[in-house]
């Protein structure tokens, strides 16, 4: 009975009698800290070059193999070595099984309760962070705009508006400089919206430093600076990242950065649990950003759906609900209406009057046309941003240059906005209700009128979106909207990818709302007489949805998010149709923005399925081979040598029964991870010591957990010459039941197994159960469908 349960294997044929030789090779999993060190040329064996270049002849290929590794400029067809896989699959070694068996039913119940508590905490903290960001941004932007407004008013009469322009540009640049410095110099991973990174994390890729406290700090400060600095950015995307960091921190019950351990939630200190909580945190972030709890849950579902169960969904929903409630509650206190829970998200689309958003059957084709336009514009946006990002990676990689670039963008944004306002002569009478315009600029308009271009440019993007949705028909003339769309499109495209933390949601919504409103106005113009149904606010909403869908290409979650943000369920159908059309049209031309950025960061991202035309590939072609193996009882010296070898930074080592001198590979009996070996070496769990000192404490699972997630590098562990001769018994610590597949397994099958179980290493064995290869995430992620059929990505050090 025990034998059956222990061998979870596709081919548990044969018995334990095998010999083999371990040759150093790259399994493709390497730690980032080794990449800087010069690799020993002697040890560095280069296998057959498998390039994408098809023209190259085999002979030249063989020659180039002999030379040193060639260098190429950064492009999208690379896989970086610095990314590792998460261990979603539990390491079921003896220690783990013993602990699980010791735990009573009560213990499991307590764990379940503490999971709920953690989710509640995640919600509360995420909501608080959102609240903090919102209030500080509002204050700082308010201060900036009132200073600039006063200045403009002063100089409108006496002349010298160019000074106002300079003032505005300098204020913007200063704020953005602060935000950019902390990002570029302290935590580059906090740049951008963070959604691509969280997507990768939920996909099972460990992005270095992505869920650290320092990242959170930089992210929060950075987003405040960049939004207040008037860049064409939003604060919603970073909320998702912040929520994820909060979740990763809270669930561990300690902070490695602050060196503080609360001695709670120790059970959750492993990748499996942490990743579940991170998905809850991302959901809470979405929920706080848009006031969309269901949308948040669906976002997590869409991005991390391969590891999902019903209880987890319910917990995630709880976290999102708590998060939006917390934000609500504290914003109501801030707005002096305690208990009035009507501030659900950072971006509030405001309530649409029911009669302004009714739609008729004959409008649906129009919505679909808008969706197609959104898809086209989105594809254009992504295409431009793709080239810009490549340029940035290749040439603007030094931190000081990045800061300078961000400052320039801020200054140009202010300049363009000012010029647009200055040369616009679209004046609108001030409304009776003064609260609609926060900073009405008169400039050259007659007294009692305001510049309508200024409502779009001289405002935080969120407010501009809202005024585009809700201002009564006639508030904008078509020329203003057209110019605004054009300039903001390029500004937003230029801004995304700078070394500042900022999201792309709001700029997309703003661009879409502007041209959507334009569409609505023109529609009313051409169908004069029946202009009742062409409410520009409604078309602004549809346009916003189309543009956002065209850029980010999210489907289900985006529909629900927009539906929840507008608070209007009847609009579900148009929004869905628009997003579908935008995605179909957009996918024809370019990928989604987040996918582009994931590719450009060379992340080994596993999509839902293996590439469509990969059925003829088998595990034999996919795997890395031969594999570095250890004996069940291995000499310490060998282990240390293998671990220290900078060119072979494997993370998983098959444990075989016995390695003999011949070429025959050994028979598999387990799998051990680098992190486990390091902990073992650190505690000096040697066979000789156990014999000599019986009183020595037995190594427990807790020792592994304490070292998680930052295991020390092998260099920091000192092993004396005597100790090198000792032996280490791995049988207690290795995963005795690793997943294996036979060599003939097809790639899609391997892929499915890998993706569905969240594996990190998959062993390939022959009919005698001898290890012939190892499949890791990078071996699978390197296949992708390109323009010329199936293509293979290259591994590179970044």
């Amino acid at each position, binding site marked *: 009975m025990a034998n059956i349960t222990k061998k979870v294997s596709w081919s548990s044929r044969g018995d334990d009698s095998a010999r083999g030789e371990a040759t150093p090779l790259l399994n493709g999993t390497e730690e980032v800290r080794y990449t800087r060190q010069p690799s020993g040329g002697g040890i560095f064996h280069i296998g057959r070059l498998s390039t994408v270049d098809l023209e190259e002849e085999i002979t030249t290929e063989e020659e180039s193999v002999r030379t040193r590794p060639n260098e190429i400029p950064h492009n999208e067809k690379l896989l970086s070595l610095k990314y590792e896989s998460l261990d979603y699959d539990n390491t079921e070694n003896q220690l783990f099984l013993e602990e699980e068996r010791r735990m009573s039913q009560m213990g499991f119940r307590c764990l379940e309760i503490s999971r709920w508590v953690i989710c509640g905490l995640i919600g509360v903290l995420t909501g608080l962070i959102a609240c903090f960001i919102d209030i500080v941004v509002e204050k700082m932007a308010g201060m900036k705009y009132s200073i600039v407004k006063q200045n403009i008013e002063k100089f409108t009469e006496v002349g*010298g508006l160019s000074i106002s322009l300079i003032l505005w540009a300098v204020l913007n640049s200063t704020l953005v400089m602060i935000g950019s410095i902390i990002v570029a110099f302290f935590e580059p991973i906090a740049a951008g919206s963070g959604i691509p990174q969280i997507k990768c994390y939920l996909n099972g890729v460990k992005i270095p430093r992505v869920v650290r406290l320092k990242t959170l700090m930089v992210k929060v400060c950075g987003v405040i600076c960049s939004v207040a600095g008037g860049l064409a950015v939003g604060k919603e995307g970073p909320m998702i990242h912040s929520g994820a960091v909060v979740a990763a921190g809270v669930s561990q019950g300690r902070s490695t950065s602050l060196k503080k351990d609360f001695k709670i939630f120790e059970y959750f200190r492993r990748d499996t649990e942490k990743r579940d909580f991170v998905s809850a945190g991302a959901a809470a972030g979405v929920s706080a950003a848009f006031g969309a709890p269901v949308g948040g849950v669906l976002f997590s579902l869409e991005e991390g759906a391969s590891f999902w169960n019903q209880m987890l969904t319910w917990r995630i929903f709880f976290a999102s609900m708590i998060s939006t409630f917390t934000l609500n509650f504290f914003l109501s206190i801030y707005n002096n209406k305690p208990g009035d829970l009507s501030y659900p998200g950072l971006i509030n689309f405001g309530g649409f009057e029911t009669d302004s958003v009714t739609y008729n059957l004959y409008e649906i084709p129009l919505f679909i046309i808008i969706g197609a336009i959104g898809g086209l514009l989105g594809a254009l946006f992504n295409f431009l941003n793709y080239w810009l990002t490549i340029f940035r990676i290749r040439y603007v990689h030094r931190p000081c240059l990045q800061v300078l670039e961000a400052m320039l963008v801020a200054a140009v944004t202010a300049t363009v906005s000012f010029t647009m306002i200055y040369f616009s002569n679209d004046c609108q009478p001030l409304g009776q209700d003064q609260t609609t315009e926060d900073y009405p600029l008169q400039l050259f308009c007659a007294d009692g009128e305001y510049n309508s271009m200024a409502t779009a440019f001289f405002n935080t993007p969120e407010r501009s979106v809202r005024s585009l949705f809700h201002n009564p028909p006639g508030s904008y003339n078509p020329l203003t909207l057209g110019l605004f769309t054009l300039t903001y499109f390029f500004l937003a495209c230029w801004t995304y990818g700078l070394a500042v933390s900022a999201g792309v949601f709001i700029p997309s919504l703003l661009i879409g709302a502007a041209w959507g409103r334009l569409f609505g106005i023109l529609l009313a113009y051409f169908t004069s007489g029946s202009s009742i149904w062409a409410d520009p606010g409604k078309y602004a909403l549809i346009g916003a949805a189309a543009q956002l869908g065209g850029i980010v290409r999210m489907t289900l979650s985006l529909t629900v998010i927009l539906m929840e943000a507008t608070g209007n369920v009847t609009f579900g159908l148009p929004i869905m149709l628009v997003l579908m059309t935008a995605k179909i049209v957009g996918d024809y031309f370019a990928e989604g923005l987040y996918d582009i950025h994931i590719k450009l960061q060379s992340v080994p991202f596993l999509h839902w399925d293996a590439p469509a035309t990969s059925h003829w590939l088998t595990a034999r072609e996919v795997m890395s081979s031969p594999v570095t193996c250890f004996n069940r009882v291995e000499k310490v010296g060998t282990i240390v040598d293998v671990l220290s070898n900078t060119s072979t930074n494997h993370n998983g080592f098959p444990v075989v029964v016995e390695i003999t001198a011949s070429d025959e590979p050994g028979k598999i009996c387990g799998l051990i991870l680098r992190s486990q070996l390091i902990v073992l070496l650190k505690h000096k769990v040697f066979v000789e010591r156990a014999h000599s000192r019986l009183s020595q404490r037995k190594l427990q699972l807790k020792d592994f957990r304490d070292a998680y997630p930052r295991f020390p590098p092998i260099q920091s562990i000192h092993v004396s010459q005597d100790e090198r001769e000792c032996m280490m018994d791995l049988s207690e610590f290795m995963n005795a039941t690793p997943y294996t597949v036979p060599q003939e397994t097809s790639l899609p099958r391997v892929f499915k197994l890998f993706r569905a179980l969240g594996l990190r290493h998959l062993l390939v064995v022959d009919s005698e159960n001898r290890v012939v290869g190892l499949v890791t995430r990078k071996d699978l992620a390197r296949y992708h469908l390109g323009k010329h059929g199936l293509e293979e990505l290259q591994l590179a050090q970044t």
Partner: protein
Amino acid sequence: MVWKSVTNTVYECLSALHNCLKMGYLTLVLAFFVLGIVQISTTKGDTSMTGPEVSGEDDFTSKSAAHFFLPVSSASEAHKSGYFFSLSLSSSFPEDLEVSDYCLTLLRIFGERYVTYVNCSVSYARPVKMCEKCYINYSDLKDIFNNISSGTGSGNESCYNSLVRSDRLMLVYMLYSSLKDIWSVASCSNCLMKPNETALSNDTLYFLTLLNVSFSCFETHQQGNHSELCKECKAPYQRLSELYSGMEKNHTLCIDLEDAMNVTRRLWSKKYECSFPLEENVPVIAVSGFMLFLPIIFYLSSFLHSEQKKRKLIHPKRAKSNHNLMNIQDKFS
């Protein structure tokens, strides 16, 4: 509302039944039945049929009694209602029995004041001086409505029930509330003295004085060159503007002042063309041109001088039987 009217109807029918049984007009019932079907009449005044002995408080008890009767009498309801409607049509029923004299007086006063107020506000609709001129009328109207809704007239009687709430339409209330909405949309109360709103506030009066100063200034300099007007009236106009923006912040503006200010501004900037901000395109264009030029320099210089980032390729070891991409392509073709 629906429930109320249903109860009312049931109650009316029952009381009618009660009466006719008592009076023995059974034959009359049959006679009027045919008539009753074609008649549709308002239900107003039905309570008079219960007879003079029913006072306000008894009214309530008999109403609840009617509820108890409901299942028993429902069968013959059609007949009874027919009788009742025809009756109410044929005879003008004694209204004094239903609504007390006191309440009717209140209603009459309400009507008079309503007319006065509406007249006033219509005559000051353009230019808007509704708040300023009609606030007395409005407060009168408010008083009388408050009297109706709260006051108990002679003999503990609530006029609110009899005048306002006894029918589906609630005409008195609707009339009043529409005016109230207009008043609040105009935010007239901002211009009135705070607690009881019986006089214009000091701010408003001050604003009106300044406004008059400006207007008189405009008038005196209207002839001839407008530049003189612009010079002379600039001071009062600016004082007015400052006061206005101050009041805007304090939320002490009503429609009158907003409209007056709009008119003044329009006169000032459109008719007399006094606001001519200095347009200096050259420096603005120069500065923005310079700003827009900076990124081009930046990108060019970083393209030319910055070292391009190269990636070191790593070649993983594969099994001997590894197919390279040539094979992949072969298999495809």
